[in-house]
């Protein structure tokens, strides 16, 4: 089992305590294509953030490949996010003052890959995602679909084993959404990357192999 959650609890303490995740048990295998669905406030984004080690949890256990991920020092967490996990966000989260290719290079920069090598690699990934000719453009010169493809290239460039996507099509029109979903599906098949997509869009969930429903902080059916 690649991802294993046992009784994970999370409470936010902003003013009055908010118990967001109430004992999550979840198993996801290597290469699965999974969607997590739920209403807003159901805790699905919190769950994704915990899976991505962007956020911490209060109790329970979370294992990646049998390694317990709990209270990691920020340096270790950063290394996991750099090498094992790739993120795709609803709002793309590209750095605006960097060009497409510079954005894609960035994770390799943090792996201390030399400049020529990471540049070549980033160019190759952009070409593969159909962005040839757009490498030197800044994010604000691109359409939503193009930006999301840059973000996907950035998530893929380190060859992560898990990709976490938080509403990847949330900011895109339906035609572009379909294209992006097609792309993610294809990557899952070709690269055997575990793909976990948080969405509230039934059409998106329908294209995944398994859908996990979350309601009021517990996993339902």
């Amino acid at each position, binding site marked *: 089992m690649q991802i294993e959650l046992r009784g994970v609890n999370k409470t936010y303490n902003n003013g009055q305590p908010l118990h967001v995740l109430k004992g999550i048990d979840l198993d996801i295998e290597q290469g699965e294509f999974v969607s997590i669905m739920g209403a807003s406030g159901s805790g699905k984004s919190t769950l994704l*953030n915990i899976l*991505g080690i*962007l*956020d911490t949890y209060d109790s329970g256990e979370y294992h990646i490949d049998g390694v317990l991920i709990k209270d990691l020092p*920020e*340096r270790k*967490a*950063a*290394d996991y*996010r*750099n*090498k094992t996990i790739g*993120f795709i*966000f609803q709002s793309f*989260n*590209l*750095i605006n*003052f*960097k060009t497409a290719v510079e954005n894609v290079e*960035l*994770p390799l*920069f*943090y*792996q201390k890959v030399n*400049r020529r090598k990471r540049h070549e690699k980033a160019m190759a990934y952009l070409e593969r995602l159909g962005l040839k000719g757009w490498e030197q453009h800044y994010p604000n010169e691109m359409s939503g679909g193009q930006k999301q493809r840059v973000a996907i290239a*950035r998530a893929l460039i*380190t060859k992560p084993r898990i990709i976490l996507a938080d509403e990847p099509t949330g900011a895109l029109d339906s035609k572009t959404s379909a294209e992006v979903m097609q792309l993610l599906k294809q990557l899952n098949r070709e690269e055997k990357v575990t793909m976990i997509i948080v969405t509230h869009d039934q059409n998106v969930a329908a294209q995944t192999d398994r859908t996990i429903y979350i309601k009021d902080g517990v996993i339902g059916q």
Partner: protein
Amino acid sequence: MRDLFVEIWESVKRNKLRTSLTGFAVAWGIFMIIVLLGAGNGLMNAFLRDSEDVITNVMTVYGGETSKPYAGYKEGRYISLMKRDMDLTAGPLFKDHIDNVLARLTRSGFNMVYGQKSFSVNLTGCYPLQQQQAGFKILAGRFINQKDIDEMRKVVVITDDQARNYLKGGTNYKTLIGRRVNINDFSYVIVGVREGFENEGDSAVYLPFTTMVTQFNTGEWLDVLSFTFHGLETEEENKAFEKYYKSVIAGAHQAAPDDESVVWISNRFTQNMQVNKATGMLNTALWIVGLFTLLSGIVGVSNIMLITVKERTHEFGIRKAIGARPMEITKLIVSESIVITAVFGYIGMFMGMVACEILDKTVGSASVDIMGMSMKVLSNPTVGLDVAIEATLVLVIAGTIAGFFPAHKATKIRPIEALRAE
């Protein structure tokens, strides 16, 4: 490294006005440090007119006046130094510390004649070491040497000013060497031309001490006795030695051994120590003033770095999400802070050095009259490489401090919160 500079440049480029305004404060701070230290150096240099050629381990002894009745004499008796004091000084009593003993005797009202020209001059009988002690340069020929002393040669060393008068305004002093002058109808050979400080009352014609004594019949008297010494390192050791020396001389003149005013001792070694101490204190004071000026610049840099961190929180969140370690974020901010501080600091340093040069060209050549003596206000008011290196160090440290707290703040924020910020 190049990537880091690209990142810094991108960040600075986006905030040109803000960066340059704060940078100005840093530049101003360093500018003040350089100008203050430069002016301080100039002031000290003006006081200590190029003293690098002067030997410092010298005590000079002058005759004094007794302050206590002793051995049947009343107080208030004038004590003049004599030849036997010189022998005593060079004798076995002080051989542990005293190396060379020399004496000087000046008499005024002589007439020196060269061709048709005639002047009234002061004659100073001296020893070879006089030159090193007084610290003047020989411009042509040589100074009095030991042979002159031993053979009581009739030779003189004149000042550049006197030489110019013979040469009708020329400065080819060499041509005067070997020429003869008459002093009170005795013929002397000019062996050297020295640098004189006429405006400070230094216009003596030097001749060998022994020649002076025999030619002008000055007897046993001498004006000033001086000696070089060694092995007295602290102020206390020097004081104790001076006290002992005075008691010996007092004994030779039938004065009370504990009478401190029998002779006056001017100790260049301890004076130098005190001057160095004063110079050090002045420098420290100027540094402190300068550093406080710089402080406002540093606070400014720290402030814009805080704003930068706040503005870039979301970006740092992205960087963290794709695997930037906290150290990478810290490096980014601290090095940006150092680069801003250093670049503007160097601009300030350069401007400060230019200002010092301007000061040198304007005030540096001006002089004021103090009690009939002309004195330079500032002499060479510039700073050396050491100050430039120290200032660089200060800039790097200041930049690090300025960047450290904002960087700490940036790394403290959790990635998920940073990503939510906008």
